[in-house]
């Protein structure tokens, strides 16, 4: 009885230590006044946080990451919403196979996806770096889009579309008038999930990055190989807070956790 009483708080404590601990260390390190990335921080200053904004390659790769995260997610949604709709509303032959294929990028390790995209798509077809990254990110986000939007569609009765049609709406009109408004929350959740997935993506981006075109995480790794100062910690902390902010807003306005 005693053992069981202790089991839960100890497990909980360990989980929190390993999940939140590193994050706290990074945040603390980013306020360091020292010259190298170290913990405990030496002194207190905001100079590394300020430095983040002055490194030009960080700025470029941040824009690239933002472009991939937003553009890739939008593209994945434009493909994924109709796909989810077709999968959930029609009895398609091989629907299960399509579902499996669509979610393959989640299951297959990023390194393999990245390598095979590079070896069999990018090199033979001479695809530009930016386009290659964009296509890869879209493909990586698609499973999340299909999965979350499908869940949202599954909760929606299909007879409301027929009701709209009988009230004079076209089939397509019914989709825009009664389906989309009711899966808005799912679409927003898919967007946020896709955005975060893309933004944090390393292995695939690593293979596809090229001269002058990198995503932010890849750029941070490259930076650390040369300079080992706390600015990387500061950047990580800023990104973490950005992610927390997005999820917080999503939860606040959309009830994000209901859809995941």
């Amino acid at each position, binding site marked *: 009885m005693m053992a069981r009483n202790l089991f839960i708080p100890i497990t909980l404590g360990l989980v929190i230590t390993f999940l939140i601990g590193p994050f706290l260390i990074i945040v603390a390190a980013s306020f360091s006044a020292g010259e190298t990335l170290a913990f405990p921080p030496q002194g207190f200053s905001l100079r590394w946080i300020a430095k983040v904004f002055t490194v030009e390659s960080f700025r470029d790769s941040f824009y690239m990451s933002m472009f991939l995260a937003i553009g890739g997610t939008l593209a994945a949604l434009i493909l994924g919403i109709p796909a989810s709709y077709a999968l959930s509303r029609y009895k398609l032959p091989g629907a299960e196979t399509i579902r499996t294929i669509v979610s393959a990028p989640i299951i297959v390790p990023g390194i393999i996806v990245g390598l095979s995209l590079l070896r069999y798509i990018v090199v033979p077809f001479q695809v530009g770096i930016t386009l290659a990254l964009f296509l890869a990110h879209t493909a990586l986000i698609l499973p999340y889009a299909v999965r979350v939007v499908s869940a949202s569609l599954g909760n929606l*009765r299909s*007879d*409301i579309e*027929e*009701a709209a049609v*009988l*009230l004079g709406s076209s089939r397509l009109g019914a989709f825009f008038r*009664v389906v989309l408004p*009711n899966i808005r929350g799912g679409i927003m959740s898919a967007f946020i999930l896709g955005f975060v997935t893309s933004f944090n993506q390393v292995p695939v981006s690593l293979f596809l990055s090229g001269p002058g075109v990198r995503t932010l995480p890849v750029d941070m790794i490259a930076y650390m190989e040369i300079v080992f100062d706390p600015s990387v910690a500061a950047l990580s902390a800023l990104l973490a807070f950005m992610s927390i902010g997005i999820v917080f807003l999503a939860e606040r306005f959309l009830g994000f956790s209901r859809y995941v």
Partner: protein
Amino acid sequence: MSDPNFLTLENLTLAYGDTVAVKDLNLTIGKGELVAFLGPSGCGKTTTMRAIAGLLSPASGHVKLDGADITRVSANKRNVGLMFQSYALFPHLSVYENVAFGLRLKKTPAAELDKRVRAGITSVGLSDYADRKPGELSGGQQQRVALARSMVMEPKVLLLDEPLSNLDARLRLDMRSELQRVQKETGVTMIFVTHDQGEALSLADRIVVMKRGAIEQIGSPEDIYNRPTSAFVADFVGFENIFELSDGRLKTPKGPVELSGPVPIAAGLAWRPRMVTLGSGPFQGTVRGASFAGNSREYLLDTPLGPIKAEVDAALPPHELGAELAFDLPVGTAAQLSTFG
């Protein structure tokens, strides 16, 4: 009933892929009629309703409404209303906007739209709920919103899918009188689909009993209840003692049995449990089961004719299990079935 051929279904065959759900159906419904499609699940009643609405296009045959062939007219241009079993309200819209949905699509002028929507909501007694979302309403209220949403379009035909089956007993009475009121006030032609004979009997002017994709019998509630013409309909409306006739004798598991009195020319005879005379008659049975049902007692008898169900007034003294009783199946009261099987 100004137009007796207001809605006609001609040789209608409906199929889902290779599965034929309704075969060669012919039916004529008059303007202002209240018709019930009655039958067990899978009999094709819902399929037929969906074909009238235009949600399913027929494999062959025609649907004609108000003088026009609408077989190829799409569902959104038919002006046929459908109240779904699940109500199918739009969850993101208020009661007001749900009811206004169709009128907005028709670009009804704002003042007229508001007047008609308010009148529709008021007529179903929900004027205090106009700004609520469907999720904030009870099942009965949601159904009335669905009714108002269909009726505000002034449909030529209102189709209702199991309109009473999701409601509890008290709401059922409310909805039944609500539908009768709407029908009386607007004169709209109504067709409702149900598997519940009580629902069909109490609400419809005419009942179409369906079985395996075909019409089994059409008639007034009295006809269907008292004069079923087939064993299937008889069974469906509660005749529990059904026998096939051959050469004027009842076919039973233990051979042919002679009835007392002149036997009509028919394929079969059927008796409700309460038509069985208990205590006297040419047959003998053993009480195998007995149950008390308030006003009456029901007995299950083991007899040379097979199991017989009888129902008698509860005021009569009860019979013990195992008791030997005389009984009769009076030919005069039996329903005469013209088809058997």
